[in-house]
């Protein structure tokens, strides 16, 4: 017998993350290697393995309420080191994209000061807009 312990909406959010990221969330066994190697960990309110745990549980609102996915710079240290083969960088991208696809920007290009725009290299702007705007 399957016991449905989570509200249906939350089960769907876990499924959505798996769909967009192509990752099997249940592979994670919480070893924490992703968090240990993450260069952005110092600024994160939830460590990457905690996001994964919440994703397994389908607790979407806890995940979107956190800065973690937005601070991920896609450096792929977690992806390379995960002993279970979970591509955590793809999972973080899925979390960002599910929000961005609702037309919610993390960075507002119109609010960047003109002198900052002139100073930044193109590669920074293109990457930032690709990762942080809808």
């Amino acid at each position, binding site marked *: 017998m399957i016991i449905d312990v989570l509200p249906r909406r939350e089960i769907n959010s876990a499924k959505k993350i798996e769909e967009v990221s192509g990752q099997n969330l249940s592979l994670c066994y919480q070893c924490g290697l992703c968090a240990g190697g993450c260069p952005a960990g110092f600024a994160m309110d939830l460590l990457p393995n905690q996001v994964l745990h919440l994703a397994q549980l389908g607790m979407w609102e806890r995940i979107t309420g956190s800065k973690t996915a937005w601070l991920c710079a896609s450096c*792929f240290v977690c992806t390379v080191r995960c002993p279970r083969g979970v591509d955590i960088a793809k999972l973080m991208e899925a979390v960002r*994209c599910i929000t961005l696809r609702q037309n919610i920007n993390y960075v507002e290009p119109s609010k960047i000061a003109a002198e900052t725009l002139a*100073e930044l290299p193109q*590669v920074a702007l293109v990457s930032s807009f690709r990762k942080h705007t809808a």
Partner: protein
Amino acid sequence: MDLSYYPGCTLKTKARNLADSTVASMAALGVNLVELPRWNCCGAVYGLTEDNLLHQLAPVRNLIRVREQGYSRVVTICSQCYHVLKRANRLMRTDPEKRKTVNSFMDEGVDYRGEVEVVHLLEVLRDDIGWKNLAQAVKIPLRGLKVAPYYGCTLLRPREIALDSPEMPTILDDLLHALGATPVYFPASTRCCGSFQVVADPDFTARCSREILDSALLSGAEALALSCPLCSFNLGSSQKELSQLHSDIRVVPVLYFTQLLAISLGLIPEVCRFELNDDESRLILQSKGILGEVPVETGKQG
């Protein structure tokens, strides 16, 4: 030898010091870099979602153009471009279903299957020129210069596109060694500089970059060599601000590996466009007697 060359957006603007030193050095080594006609931006970051192939179109278009030009390889220098082009190419090689969808967006009759090989300039130096031959071509060895080879992220990760070992790379160390410099091992050589986060939160990237610079300094490095214009900006700009705030912070000169290559090959310093670097980058080379007086506009940050 002619090689198809994909410069990417930043090499044509903010990182002329990377572009010009590359083209001149390779010409000196007998490699003619032929710029890909009508190239477009690769997208700078690789699309990581399974359900959206739109972001694969830009890099794949470039690869199709390389094939149209009759080349089997394309060389790129920017770490971000390398990463995106190499991964998009790999997708076209390994995923028949996605390949079909991506091809359906291209001109009729185009059936691209990842035939082109994407290589980084460091790979050309290692595999085509060879470290021994390169060492023989060096006219001004970078003797006595302790350089921290900074690899960053996108040349090495994920594993399937890495140009060297993802955890213990040596390719940049080997290059510096061939040029007569002393490569310095430092623990943060593959650590992320914070990347594009500099747009949303420069304080965050400053902290990421500081860890890398401190690690290089503690290991005895006098300069840092890299291949990415985004890393160069983050590592350079954080220093400018921090050294204004704290007078005790030592500045680490940040150079493109191709600038060190050009100087060691005895090319005129103008090809290095040092005016786009920090002043310290030029001064450290001059203090070692590697570089003479260079007429540059000072005080301009690249």
